[in-house]
Protein backbone atom coordinates (compact mmCIF):
# COMPACT_ATOMS: atom_id res chain seq x y z
CA UNK A 1 0.00 0.00 0.00
CA UNK A 2 1.72 3.21 -1.08
CA UNK A 3 1.81 6.06 1.38
CA UNK A 4 1.07 9.54 0.22
CA UNK A 5 2.33 11.18 3.41
CA UNK A 6 0.54 14.41 2.69
CA UNK A 7 0.04 14.92 6.41
CA UNK A 8 3.05 15.54 8.64
CA UNK A 9 3.64 12.49 10.81
CA UNK A 10 4.83 12.30 14.37
CA UNK A 11 1.54 11.41 16.05
CA UNK A 12 -0.09 8.15 16.97
CA UNK A 13 -3.29 7.52 15.04
CA UNK A 14 -6.10 6.50 17.39
CA UNK A 15 -8.31 3.63 16.29
CA UNK A 16 -11.95 4.27 15.41
CA UNK A 17 -13.21 3.25 18.85
CA UNK A 18 -10.87 5.73 20.53
CA UNK A 19 -12.03 8.47 18.14
CA UNK A 20 -15.63 7.72 19.16
CA UNK A 21 -14.63 8.09 22.81
CA UNK A 22 -12.98 11.43 22.08
CA UNK A 23 -16.19 12.56 20.31
CA UNK A 24 -18.17 12.20 23.56
CA UNK A 25 -16.25 15.07 25.11
CA UNK A 26 -14.90 16.93 22.09
CA UNK A 27 -16.63 16.41 18.73
CA UNK A 28 -14.35 18.85 16.94
CA UNK A 29 -11.19 17.02 18.03
CA UNK A 30 -12.74 13.71 16.97
CA UNK A 31 -13.63 15.13 13.56
CA UNK A 32 -10.06 16.39 13.24
CA UNK A 33 -8.73 12.87 13.91
CA UNK A 34 -11.09 11.38 11.35
CA UNK A 35 -9.82 13.76 8.69
CA UNK A 36 -6.16 13.21 9.61
CA UNK A 37 -6.61 9.44 9.63
CA UNK A 38 -8.68 8.98 6.49
CA UNK A 39 -7.79 11.89 4.22
CA UNK A 40 -5.03 10.07 2.32
CA UNK A 41 -6.84 6.74 1.84
CA UNK A 42 -10.06 8.47 0.80
CA UNK A 43 -8.27 10.86 -1.57
CA UNK A 44 -6.33 7.93 -3.09
CA UNK A 45 -9.48 5.83 -3.49
CA UNK A 46 -11.20 8.73 -5.26
CA UNK A 47 -8.15 9.41 -7.46
CA UNK A 48 -7.87 5.76 -8.48
CA UNK A 49 -11.50 5.68 -9.59
CA UNK A 50 -11.68 9.14 -11.15
CA UNK A 51 -8.10 9.51 -12.43
CA UNK A 52 -8.44 13.26 -11.97
CA UNK A 53 -6.84 15.24 -9.16
CA UNK A 54 -9.33 18.10 -9.00
CA UNK A 55 -12.36 15.84 -8.96
CA UNK A 56 -10.70 13.63 -6.34
CA UNK A 57 -10.09 16.65 -4.08
CA UNK A 58 -13.72 17.78 -4.48
CA UNK A 59 -15.01 14.30 -3.67
CA UNK A 60 -12.74 13.96 -0.62
CA UNK A 61 -13.97 17.32 0.69
CA UNK A 62 -17.60 16.39 0.04
CA UNK A 63 -17.16 13.06 1.85
CA UNK A 64 -15.81 14.67 5.02
CA UNK A 65 -18.45 17.41 5.00
CA UNK A 66 -21.13 14.71 4.75
CA UNK A 67 -19.43 12.79 7.56
CA UNK A 68 -19.61 15.83 9.83
CA UNK A 69 -23.26 16.34 8.96
CA UNK A 70 -24.03 12.69 9.72
CA UNK A 71 -25.49 12.68 13.25
CA UNK A 72 -24.77 8.96 13.82
CA UNK A 73 -21.14 9.18 12.70
CA UNK A 74 -19.63 8.82 16.17
CA UNK A 75 -22.25 6.36 17.45
CA UNK A 76 -20.90 3.20 19.06
CA UNK A 77 -22.24 0.83 16.39
CA UNK A 78 -21.45 3.09 13.43
CA UNK A 79 -18.87 1.71 10.98
CA UNK A 80 -17.14 4.92 10.02
CA UNK A 81 -14.49 3.43 7.73
CA UNK A 82 -17.05 1.46 5.70
CA UNK A 83 -19.29 4.55 5.56
CA UNK A 84 -16.45 6.77 4.29
CA UNK A 85 -15.50 4.29 1.55
CA UNK A 86 -19.13 3.70 0.58
CA UNK A 87 -19.87 7.41 0.21
CA UNK A 88 -16.59 7.95 -1.69
CA UNK A 89 -17.35 5.09 -4.09
CA UNK A 90 -20.91 6.28 -4.68
CA UNK A 91 -19.88 9.87 -5.36
CA UNK A 92 -17.02 8.78 -7.64
CA UNK A 93 -19.07 6.32 -9.69
CA UNK A 94 -21.86 8.90 -10.04
CA UNK A 95 -19.24 11.29 -11.45
CA UNK A 96 -17.89 8.59 -13.76
CA UNK A 97 -21.41 7.89 -15.07
CA UNK A 98 -22.12 11.61 -15.54
CA UNK A 99 -18.81 11.95 -17.35
CA UNK A 100 -19.66 8.99 -19.61
CA UNK A 101 -23.04 10.52 -20.49
CA UNK A 102 -21.47 13.92 -21.13
CA UNK A 103 -18.81 12.37 -23.33
CA UNK A 104 -21.46 10.49 -25.29
CA UNK A 105 -23.24 13.77 -25.98
CA UNK A 106 -20.04 15.60 -26.89
CA UNK A 107 -18.57 12.68 -28.81
CA UNK A 108 -18.73 14.46 -32.12
CA UNK A 109 -17.07 17.62 -30.79
CA UNK A 110 -13.28 17.43 -31.28
CA UNK A 111 -11.40 17.97 -28.05
CA UNK A 112 -8.38 20.30 -28.13
CA UNK A 113 -5.04 18.78 -27.20
CA UNK A 114 -4.14 19.11 -23.54
CA UNK A 115 -7.73 19.76 -22.58
CA UNK A 116 -7.48 17.54 -19.50
CA UNK A 117 -4.93 19.27 -17.27
CA UNK A 118 -5.92 17.48 -14.06
CA UNK A 119 -5.31 13.91 -15.17
CA UNK A 120 -3.59 11.84 -12.50
CA UNK A 121 -0.10 10.56 -12.95
CA UNK A 122 0.06 6.93 -11.79
CA UNK A 123 3.43 5.35 -11.17
CA UNK A 124 3.58 1.57 -11.57
CA UNK A 125 6.05 -0.98 -10.40
CA UNK A 126 6.06 -2.59 -13.83
CA UNK A 127 4.43 -2.76 -17.22
CA UNK A 128 2.22 -5.68 -16.21
CA UNK A 129 0.46 -3.61 -13.55
CA UNK A 130 -0.22 -0.93 -16.16
CA UNK A 131 -1.81 -3.60 -18.34
CA UNK A 132 -3.82 -4.86 -15.38
CA UNK A 133 -5.12 -1.33 -14.72
CA UNK A 134 -6.06 -0.98 -18.40
CA UNK A 135 -7.86 -4.32 -18.18
CA UNK A 136 -9.67 -3.22 -15.00
CA UNK A 137 -11.10 -0.26 -16.90
CA UNK A 138 -12.92 -2.77 -19.11
CA UNK A 139 -14.62 -4.58 -16.22
CA UNK A 140 -18.12 -3.90 -14.98
CA UNK A 141 -18.50 -1.20 -12.34
CA UNK A 142 -19.24 -3.74 -9.58
CA UNK A 143 -16.16 -5.79 -10.38
CA UNK A 144 -13.90 -2.76 -10.70
CA UNK A 145 -15.15 -1.39 -7.39
CA UNK A 146 -14.58 -4.59 -5.43
CA UNK A 147 -11.08 -5.07 -6.90
CA UNK A 148 -10.12 -1.53 -5.97
CA UNK A 149 -11.44 -1.90 -2.42
CA UNK A 150 -9.58 -5.17 -1.94
CA UNK A 151 -6.28 -4.70 -3.76
CA UNK A 152 -5.78 -0.93 -3.87
CA UNK A 153 -7.36 0.20 -0.61
CA UNK A 154 -6.46 -3.08 1.16
CA UNK A 155 -9.85 -3.54 2.83
CA UNK A 156 -10.56 -6.88 4.51
CA UNK A 157 -13.45 -9.09 3.36
CA UNK A 158 -15.48 -7.99 6.39
CA UNK A 159 -14.83 -4.31 5.64
CA UNK A 160 -15.81 -4.80 2.00
CA UNK A 161 -18.98 -6.52 3.20
CA UNK A 162 -19.81 -3.48 5.38
CA UNK A 163 -18.85 -1.00 2.66
CA UNK A 164 -20.91 -2.56 -0.09
CA UNK A 165 -23.71 -3.77 2.19
CA UNK A 166 -23.43 -7.36 0.95
CA UNK A 167 -22.92 -10.70 2.71
CA UNK A 168 -19.45 -12.16 3.25
CA UNK A 169 -20.23 -15.05 0.88
CA UNK A 170 -21.23 -12.55 -1.81
CA UNK A 171 -17.93 -10.70 -1.30
CA UNK A 172 -16.06 -13.97 -1.94
CA UNK A 173 -18.03 -14.94 -5.04
CA UNK A 174 -18.02 -11.41 -6.51
CA UNK A 175 -14.29 -11.08 -5.92
CA UNK A 176 -13.68 -14.46 -7.57
CA UNK A 177 -15.81 -13.52 -10.57
CA UNK A 178 -14.07 -10.14 -10.83
CA UNK A 179 -10.62 -11.76 -10.83
CA UNK A 180 -11.82 -14.35 -13.32
CA UNK A 181 -13.16 -11.61 -15.60
CA UNK A 182 -9.86 -9.76 -15.24
CA UNK A 183 -7.95 -12.86 -16.38
CA UNK A 184 -10.30 -13.21 -19.37
CA UNK A 185 -9.74 -9.56 -20.39
CA UNK A 186 -5.97 -9.94 -20.00
CA UNK A 187 -6.13 -13.05 -22.19
CA UNK A 188 -8.12 -11.10 -24.80
CA UNK A 189 -5.48 -8.36 -24.71
CA UNK A 190 -2.78 -11.01 -25.10
CA UNK A 191 -1.03 -10.08 -21.85
CA UNK A 192 1.45 -12.73 -20.81
CA UNK A 193 1.93 -13.53 -17.14
CA UNK A 194 5.25 -13.30 -15.41
Amino acid at each position, binding site marked *: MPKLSLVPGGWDVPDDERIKQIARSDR*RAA*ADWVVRKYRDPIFQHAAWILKDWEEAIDV*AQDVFIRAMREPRFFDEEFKMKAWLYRVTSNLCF*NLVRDRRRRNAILESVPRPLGDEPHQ*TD*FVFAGQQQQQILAAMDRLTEDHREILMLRYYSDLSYAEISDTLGIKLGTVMSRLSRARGQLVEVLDELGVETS
Partner: protein
Amino acid sequence: MVCSEVRERLVPWHDGEVGPSEDELIRGHLVGCPSCTRLDQRLRDTVPAPPQLSPPPEVQQRLARALDIDLLLQEASRPAPPPERLWMQTWRLLTRRAEVPVGAVMVYALLLFASFAWGLSSWWALPTGQVPLDAASADIPADQFRPAAFEP
Protein backbone atom coordinates in the same frame (compact mmCIF):
# COMPACT_ATOMS: atom_id res chain seq x y z
CA MET B 1 -15.74 -30.38 -4.98
CA VAL B 2 -16.43 -29.74 -8.67
CA CYS B 3 -14.50 -27.30 -10.86
CA SER B 4 -17.10 -24.49 -10.69
CA GLU B 5 -17.07 -24.60 -6.87
CA VAL B 6 -13.27 -24.57 -6.75
CA ARG B 7 -13.08 -21.65 -9.17
CA GLU B 8 -15.47 -19.64 -6.95
CA ARG B 9 -13.20 -20.27 -3.95
CA LEU B 10 -9.71 -19.83 -5.41
CA VAL B 11 -9.40 -16.12 -4.63
CA PRO B 12 -10.67 -16.39 -1.01
CA TRP B 13 -8.35 -19.41 -0.70
CA HIS B 14 -5.35 -17.31 -1.77
CA ASP B 15 -6.40 -14.68 0.77
CA GLY B 16 -6.64 -17.25 3.59
CA GLU B 17 -10.39 -16.73 3.94
CA VAL B 18 -11.46 -20.40 3.74
CA GLY B 19 -11.61 -22.92 6.57
CA PRO B 20 -9.25 -25.93 7.00
CA SER B 21 -11.70 -28.48 5.56
CA GLU B 22 -12.30 -26.38 2.45
CA ASP B 23 -8.56 -25.77 2.14
CA GLU B 24 -8.00 -29.53 2.02
CA LEU B 25 -10.75 -30.03 -0.59
CA ILE B 26 -9.31 -27.32 -2.85
CA ARG B 27 -5.76 -28.71 -2.58
CA GLY B 28 -7.06 -32.20 -3.34
CA HIS B 29 -8.97 -30.97 -6.39
CA LEU B 30 -5.99 -29.04 -7.79
CA VAL B 31 -3.77 -32.13 -7.70
CA GLY B 32 -5.98 -33.89 -10.23
CA CYS B 33 -7.31 -30.96 -12.31
CA PRO B 34 -4.89 -29.31 -14.76
CA SER B 35 -7.52 -26.78 -15.90
CA CYS B 36 -8.14 -25.40 -12.38
CA THR B 37 -4.40 -25.52 -11.66
CA ARG B 38 -3.79 -23.33 -14.72
CA LEU B 39 -6.43 -20.82 -13.56
CA ASP B 40 -4.94 -20.90 -10.05
CA GLN B 41 -1.52 -19.98 -11.46
CA ARG B 42 -3.00 -17.31 -13.75
CA LEU B 43 -4.81 -15.71 -10.79
CA ARG B 44 -1.61 -15.69 -8.75
CA ASP B 45 0.24 -13.98 -11.60
CA THR B 46 -2.33 -11.23 -12.09
CA VAL B 47 -2.94 -9.86 -8.60
CA PRO B 48 -3.66 -6.13 -8.98
CA ALA B 49 -1.21 -3.92 -7.09
CA PRO B 50 -2.05 -0.31 -6.19
CA PRO B 51 -0.47 2.23 -8.50
CA GLN B 52 1.46 4.87 -6.60
CA LEU B 53 0.05 8.35 -6.77
CA SER B 54 2.36 11.25 -7.31
CA PRO B 55 0.25 14.40 -7.03
CA PRO B 56 2.14 17.57 -7.92
CA PRO B 57 2.85 20.01 -5.03
CA GLU B 58 0.02 22.36 -6.03
CA VAL B 59 -2.47 19.48 -5.83
CA GLN B 60 -1.17 18.55 -2.37
CA GLN B 61 -1.55 22.18 -1.25
CA ARG B 62 -5.06 22.39 -2.62
CA LEU B 63 -5.99 19.13 -0.90
CA ALA B 64 -4.61 20.44 2.40
CA ARG B 65 -6.67 23.64 2.02
CA ALA B 66 -9.82 21.75 0.99
CA LEU B 67 -9.58 19.43 3.99
CA ASP B 68 -8.80 22.07 6.60
CA ILE B 69 -10.84 21.10 9.63
CA ASP B 70 -12.19 24.63 10.27
CA LEU B 71 -13.33 24.94 6.66
CA LEU B 72 -14.97 21.50 6.76
CA LEU B 73 -16.82 22.27 10.01
CA GLN B 74 -17.95 25.62 8.63
CA GLU B 75 -19.27 23.94 5.46
CA ALA B 76 -20.91 21.20 7.49
CA SER B 77 -22.72 23.75 9.68
CA ARG B 78 -24.50 25.18 6.64
CA PRO B 79 -27.88 23.66 5.80
CA ALA B 80 -27.45 20.49 3.78
CA PRO B 81 -28.69 20.54 0.19
CA PRO B 82 -32.14 18.99 -0.21
CA PRO B 83 -32.05 15.21 -0.63
CA GLU B 84 -32.30 13.83 -4.12
CA ARG B 85 -35.92 13.60 -5.26
CA LEU B 86 -37.52 10.21 -5.77
CA TRP B 87 -37.75 10.57 -9.55
CA MET B 88 -34.04 11.43 -9.70
CA GLN B 89 -33.17 8.40 -7.59
CA THR B 90 -35.33 6.24 -9.86
CA TRP B 91 -33.65 7.68 -12.93
CA ARG B 92 -30.19 6.98 -11.49
CA LEU B 93 -31.24 3.41 -10.70
CA LEU B 94 -32.64 2.95 -14.21
CA THR B 95 -29.54 4.30 -15.89
CA ARG B 96 -27.02 2.69 -13.58
CA ARG B 97 -26.11 -0.34 -15.66
CA ALA B 98 -28.03 0.50 -18.79
CA GLU B 99 -26.45 -1.13 -21.83
CA VAL B 100 -29.29 0.01 -24.15
CA PRO B 101 -30.80 3.51 -24.46
CA VAL B 102 -33.25 3.71 -21.56
CA GLY B 103 -35.36 6.34 -23.31
CA ALA B 104 -35.96 4.03 -26.29
CA VAL B 105 -36.94 1.17 -24.01
CA MET B 106 -39.37 3.40 -22.11
CA VAL B 107 -41.00 4.69 -25.32
CA TYR B 108 -41.31 1.11 -26.58
CA ALA B 109 -42.90 0.01 -23.29
CA LEU B 110 -45.32 2.96 -23.43
CA LEU B 111 -46.40 2.10 -26.99
CA LEU B 112 -46.82 -1.55 -26.05
CA PHE B 113 -48.99 -0.60 -23.08
CA ALA B 114 -51.04 1.87 -25.16
CA SER B 115 -51.78 -0.72 -27.87
CA PHE B 116 -52.73 -3.28 -25.26
CA ALA B 117 -55.01 -0.78 -23.49
CA TRP B 118 -56.66 0.21 -26.82
CA GLY B 119 -57.34 -3.44 -27.66
CA LEU B 120 -58.79 -4.04 -24.23
CA SER B 121 -61.07 -0.98 -24.40
CA SER B 122 -62.43 -2.06 -27.86
CA TRP B 123 -63.26 -5.48 -26.49
CA TRP B 124 -65.05 -3.99 -23.49
CA ALA B 125 -67.07 -1.62 -25.76
CA LEU B 126 -69.00 -4.56 -27.37
CA PRO B 127 -72.51 -5.22 -25.97
CA THR B 128 -72.77 -8.54 -24.18
CA GLY B 129 -73.54 -11.53 -26.46
CA GLN B 130 -73.28 -9.54 -29.68
CA VAL B 131 -70.87 -10.79 -32.29
CA PRO B 132 -69.22 -8.15 -34.47
CA LEU B 133 -70.66 -8.30 -38.01
CA ASP B 134 -68.90 -7.78 -41.23
CA ALA B 135 -69.44 -4.14 -42.25
CA ALA B 136 -70.55 -5.05 -45.82
CA SER B 137 -73.30 -7.50 -44.77
CA ALA B 138 -74.52 -5.73 -41.61
CA ASP B 139 -77.65 -4.04 -43.15
CA ILE B 140 -78.82 -6.93 -45.49
CA PRO B 141 -81.58 -9.21 -44.14
CA ALA B 142 -80.48 -12.84 -44.08
CA ASP B 143 -83.09 -14.03 -46.70
CA GLN B 144 -82.01 -11.43 -49.27
CA PHE B 145 -78.36 -12.03 -48.93
CA ARG B 146 -76.70 -13.36 -52.06
CA PRO B 147 -73.01 -13.67 -52.42
CA ALA B 148 -71.61 -11.76 -55.41
CA ALA B 149 -70.43 -14.99 -57.04
CA PHE B 150 -74.13 -16.10 -57.56
CA GLU B 151 -74.87 -13.35 -60.10
CA PRO B 152 -74.82 -14.60 -63.73
